[in-house]
C-alpha cells in the first residue's frame, strides 16, 4: 500500500494535485489499475506468457528431442489429437474417474460435515483428524494406498483376505483399479468438501432449525428446505474446484496404477505427461493441453451460469 497517496483527503472523486509522472500514476482514476498491476504482472510473467508460448507451439510440429527446425502446420495437431481414439478413450477414463471421485467426495465430505456441524466437546481436535489427509503429499498418499491394496503386504488386503477365501487383487481389473484410485483421491479431498459444506452448515441461523422443529418438519424436509439452500452455492463451489483439480489428477494415478491394467486408468493428465515428456511430442501435447483447458473452461462456465441463474432467481 506504500504506493498510495498519503495526502489527508483522497476521496476517489477528488482530483489529485501532485504533478509529473508520479501524479499521473497516483491519480485516483488509475487506482484500480494500479492495485491490480502487481498481481497481473506476476501472473503474466509466470503463467500467461508461458501459456501463450505453448499455445504458439501447438501450431508447429516441434519435438523437444529433435534438432529439426519446427514447421508451422496450422491446426494439424488439433486435428490429430481430436481424431485419435486413444485420446477419446483417455477422456472417457478421466470423466469416469473425475465423476465418481467428485461424487464420492461430495457424499463423504457432506456426511463428515453433518457429523461436525454439531458443537461437541473436543470438536476442534477431532476435526483435525479429518482435515489431515489433504495436507499429505500426493506422492505419499499414492504410495501408501498402493501398499494398502498390495495383495500380500497390504492392510486392506490382509483384512479382506481374512473375510474372503479369494485373494484380494483389487488393482487387477479395470473396475477395481479405478475404484482404488477413486478411493484414494476421494479420501484425500473429501475434507476439502467437508470444510466448504461445514462452513455453510455453520452459517445456517439456529432459529431456522428451531422453527422447523416447532413446525414439526421431518428431518428430510428440514434438510431440503433449510440446510440445502444454505450450502448449495458452497457445494457448487466445491464441485467446481474439485472438478478442475481432479481433471489434473496425475501423481496418485501414476503411482498407484501407472494407468493400468492396460490403459484402463490412464487419465488425460497421465497421457499428457507421456506425450509431452516421454514421447517428446511437444507441440501435440500443447494442443492436447489446450483442448483440456477448453473443456475445463466450458465446465467452469456452466458452473458460473448455474450460479448466476440462481442468483438472478433470488433477486
Amino acid at each position: 500500500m506504500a504506493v498510495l497517496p498519503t495526502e489527508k483527503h483522497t476521496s476517489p472523486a477528488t482530483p489529485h494535485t501532485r504533478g509529473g509522472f508520479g501524479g499521473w500514476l497516483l491519480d485516483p482514476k488509475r487506482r484500480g489499475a494500479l492495485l491490480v498491476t502487481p498481481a497481473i504482472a506476476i501472473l503474466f510473467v509466470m503463467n500467461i506468457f508461458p501459456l501463450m508460448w505453448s499455445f504458439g507451439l501447438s501450431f508447429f510440429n516441434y519435438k523437444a528431442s529433435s534438432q529439426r527446425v519446427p514447421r508451422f502446420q496450422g491446426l494439424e495437431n488439433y486435428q490429430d489429437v481430436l481424431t485419435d481414439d486413444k485420446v477419446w478413450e483417455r477422456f472417457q477414463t478421466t470423466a469416469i474417474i473425475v465423476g465418481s471421485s467428485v461424487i464420492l467426495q461430495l457424499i463423504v465430505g457432506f456426511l463428515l460435515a453433518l457429523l461436525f456441524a454439531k458443537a461437541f466437546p473436543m470438536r476442534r481436535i477431532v476435526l483435525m483428524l479429518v482435515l489431515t489427509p489433504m495436507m499429505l503429499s500426493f506422492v505419499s498418499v499414492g504410495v501408501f494406498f498402493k501398499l494398502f491394496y498390495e495383495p500380500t503386504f497390504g492392510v486392506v488386503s490382509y483384512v479382506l483376505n481374512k473375510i474372503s477365501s479369494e485373494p484380494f487383487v483389487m488393482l487387477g481389473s479395470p473396475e477395481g483399479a479405478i475404484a482404488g484410485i477413486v478411493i484414494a483421491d476421494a479420501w484425500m479431498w473429501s475434507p476439502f468438501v467437508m470444510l466448504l459444506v461445514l462452513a455453510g452448515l455453520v452459517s445456517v441461523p439456529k432459529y431456522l432449525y428451531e422453527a422447523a422443529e416447532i413446525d414439526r418438519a421431518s428431518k428430510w424436509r428440514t434438510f431440503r428446505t433449510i440446510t440445502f439452500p444454505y450450502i448449495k452455492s458452497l457445494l457448487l463451489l466445491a464441485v467446481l474446484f474439485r472438478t478442475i483439480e481432479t481433471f489434473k489428477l496425475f501423481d496418485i494415478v501414476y503411482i498407484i496404477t501407472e494407468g493400468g491394467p492396460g490403459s484402463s486408468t490412464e487419465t488425460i493428465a497421465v497421457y499428457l505427461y507421456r506425450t509431452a515428456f516421454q514421447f517428446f511430442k511437444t507441440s501435440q501435447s500443447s494442443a492436447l493441453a489446450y483442448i483440456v483447458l477448453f473443456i475445463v473452461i466450458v465446465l467452469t462456465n456452466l458452473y458460473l451460469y448455474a450460479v448466476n441463474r440462481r442468483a438472478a432467481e433470488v433477486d
Partner: protein
Amino acid sequence: MARKHREIGKAGWGYTAVASVIGFIYFFPVFWIILTAFKTRTDALAVPPKLIFTPTFDNFVSVFYRASITTGTSQATDMGLYFFNSIFIAFTSVGLALIVGTLAAYAFSRYPLRGNDTYLFIILTTRMMPPIVVIIPIFLMFRLSGLAGSYWGIIFLYTAFNIPFSVWLVKSFFDELNPEIEDAARMDGATERRVFFGFCIPQILAGLSATFVFGLILTWNEFLFALLLTGVETRTVPVAMARTLGGEVGVDYGLLAAIVTLFLIPIFFVTFLLQNQLLRGVTFGTVKK
C-alpha cells in the same frame, strides 16, 4: 416418545465418542503412515500387519543422516535445509500471493474496470491449465532469467499459482463489506490507506486467514515444479522425499513415513491454530443472507 432428546446443534461427550471413532477411522491411513515411521522395513512389510512392535527411531535419524558408501561414517542429508526451504518458500509465496491478491481483489471489488469479469475469469483460467504444458516454457524462461535454482524463482512461481485463488476468495470477502461505511470514513477525513487498513482489512481477517491456510495446503506438497526448478540448495521436502521411492530397493516406507510425519507437523499446526478462521472465512461471501 419419552426419551430425553438433545437441544438442537449441541451434543455431549457421547457424541464426541462417536465422532472420534468415525474421525479415527478416517484418520487411520495417516495413523498407519505415522506408525510406519517407527517401523523397520521388515515390520513395515510384516504379514500380518503389525500394530504392536518395537518402535525404532532409525527412520527419523535417516531423515537427517545417512552412512557414507565408502567409509560408513554418517553424513548429513541436508534434509534440515530442505525443511527450511519448504517452510520459507511456501510461507513467503503464499503470503506474497495474499498481499498481491488482496490489493487486486480490492481493486476488482471497489474500482471495477470495464470487462472486470473477463479479467477475473482469465485469472482463474491460469489455474485450470494442466501444469505439464507450461513446464518447458517456464523452464526455459528460468534459465534465461537466471532464476532457476534460486529462491525467488520458485517463490514467484508459487505466488503466481496462488494468486487466482487469493483474488477470487478475497474479492468475495470485500464484496460482502458495506462500502457505505468506507464512504462514511472518507467523509470523516480518513485517508485511503486508513480506509483500507483500518476498516476493510480488519473485517476480513478471518477470510484472509482461511485463504492463507488453503493456499498453504495447496502449495505445501507441490512436486513437479519444485523438482524441475529448484537447485540442490533450494530443493524442497517433496522433492527430497522422492529419494525414498526407489533406487536400490523399492519404496523405503519407514523413511518416507518419517519424512511425511515430520513434514505434516508445521502445516498441521498452522491449520489447527487457524481452524476457527478457516471455518468462518470460507462462509464469507459465498453465503448470502
